[in-house]
């Protein structure tokens, strides 16, 4: 079962890397909640930068082709640090995330962001799925940025 949990998490990275948004959504339960943020030492506050349900995440992905976006490829590398089966049968996992950006022109890669992901994973008729994902970024500067969340 631990292997299946790991595979789910890694598949979530691969789908976003490949811009396979329907694939990513299919890994999420209908009640999925996604949150990404960071702590700002400058204003001494925790900031939430994006909070989406599965449905609103789907809308976000669907709207992206209408926007002007950087086309550099992002590659997500995760190391699962901890995994635990909770008393209610859900799995929790803590993953250290590194995101690399590779330019289209020339293919130069650079580290784009780091952070930690807390996932809650639940069994369903379709197998293990993401119930929630909470990403706490260490990185707070992204140059000209990117539209697709991590």
């Amino acid at each position, binding site marked *: 079962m631990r292997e299946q949990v790991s595979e789910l998490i890694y598949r979530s990275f691969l789908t976003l890397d490949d811009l396979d948004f329907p694939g990513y959504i299919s890994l999420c339960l209908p009640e999925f909640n996604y949150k990404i943020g960071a702590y700002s030492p*400058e*204003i001494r506050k925790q*900031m939430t*930068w*994006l909070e989406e349900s599965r449905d609103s995440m789907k809308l976000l992905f669907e709207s992206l082709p209408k926007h002007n976006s950087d086309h550099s490829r992002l590659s997500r590398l995760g190391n699962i640090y901890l995994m635990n089966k909770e008393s209610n049968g859900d799995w929790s996992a803590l993953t250290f995330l590194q995101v690399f950006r590779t330019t289209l022109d020339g293919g130069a890669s650079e580290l784009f962001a780091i952070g930690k992901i807390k996932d809650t994973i639940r069994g369903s008729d379709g197998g293990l799925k993401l119930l929630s994902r909470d990403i706490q970024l260490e990185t707070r500067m992204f140059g*000209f940025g990117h539209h697709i969340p991590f």
Partner: protein
Amino acid sequence: MAKTAEQWIQTPPFPTSHFVDSRIYTDETLFKEEQEKIFNKSWIIACHESELPGAYDYRTFSHPGGAPLIVVKGEDLKVRSFYNICPHRGNTLLYDPVGNAKRITCIFHAWMFDTKGNCLEISRGKQGYQDRYTCDDASLREVRTEIGYGGFVWVNVDDNACSLKEFIGDSMNMLDEQLSMPLEVFHYHKAIVDTNYKLWHDTNSEFYHDYMHYFNRATGMIQPGYFDRKYTGYPNGHASVGSMEIKYDAYQGSKARSVGWPGLAPGGWVLIDIFPGMTFNLRTSVLRMDTAIPLGPNKLLIEFRGLGLKNDTPEQRAERVRDHNFIWGPFGRNLHEDLLGVHGQGRAMREGTDSKWVIHGREENMTIHDEGGMRHFYSEWSKKMNRQAFNPMGDNKLTQAA
């Protein structure tokens, strides 16, 4: 028909107020002059009062003129600013961007200062300096500081500059009521982009680039009232854009804003550009403040702040945060597009790319797609720099009647 090399550099068919030489965005000499003649003579936003909640709280700030600053709230709760430079051997006094320091002690030789800029102790001072140099000689360099216009902390390194009130004049009148209650910063992040600060400020000075923003086209450009918004220019290079009702739910996944802002009409949007590089952007439920801090002619640091009301309920604050992030957060729809746009300009207008002119020629009775806001900015720039933005080095031969 595409242009020849000669045609490419030909003077644009506009009055000289309607175009600039792209060297104003790339030249190192002009940049250093801008730091001296513009940034070191202007009132600049260093932080917000909500970032200094208690006595001895401080923030550091990289002044666009070059000086590193400390902004600190004293025991008397007055906010003062100083050079973040030890008068002894030039070390940085406070390394962290934020903190609390009843005493400011230099890590190098333990010289100690208070939050009024007084030197309190020179370690082994008598032994080393005898009576030749004392604490009275070693005070910090204070920088003029005022709080105003929504609780922002403004600094001016020019001791002889006019007051903040005189600098702003009437340009902020449109937000008098909206900025009259205590505000609080809930969002802060920075971005460094390879571009010139004026190109970033341009994106806040014209709305013609709404063609770049799908969100703005859907919720604004095709909605009633969009083309009625007007630019107004003010002395000292400031400008404002009047409001319209944004139809947020015209964009898939976006909802009408349920939280507003006191004094602002439902769905309203007011924008005020403060010369040389700050923008008050009050969009229905959120106030955004951009501060442009140029690091070089083609490198810009932008501080982004999102603010709400200090007395927001948790639910109101959560709504403001969501509204802010939808368009202006690091993963928001608009911010990346704006940054990508100016990044592209910076790339195409580096020294050596043979870029020549930037056109600010649109005239639509100072309504929303008029480029009068930029013309107003560059008129002030030319005055302060004692250079003409269309001919900054004096070596352009105007090749046709302009």
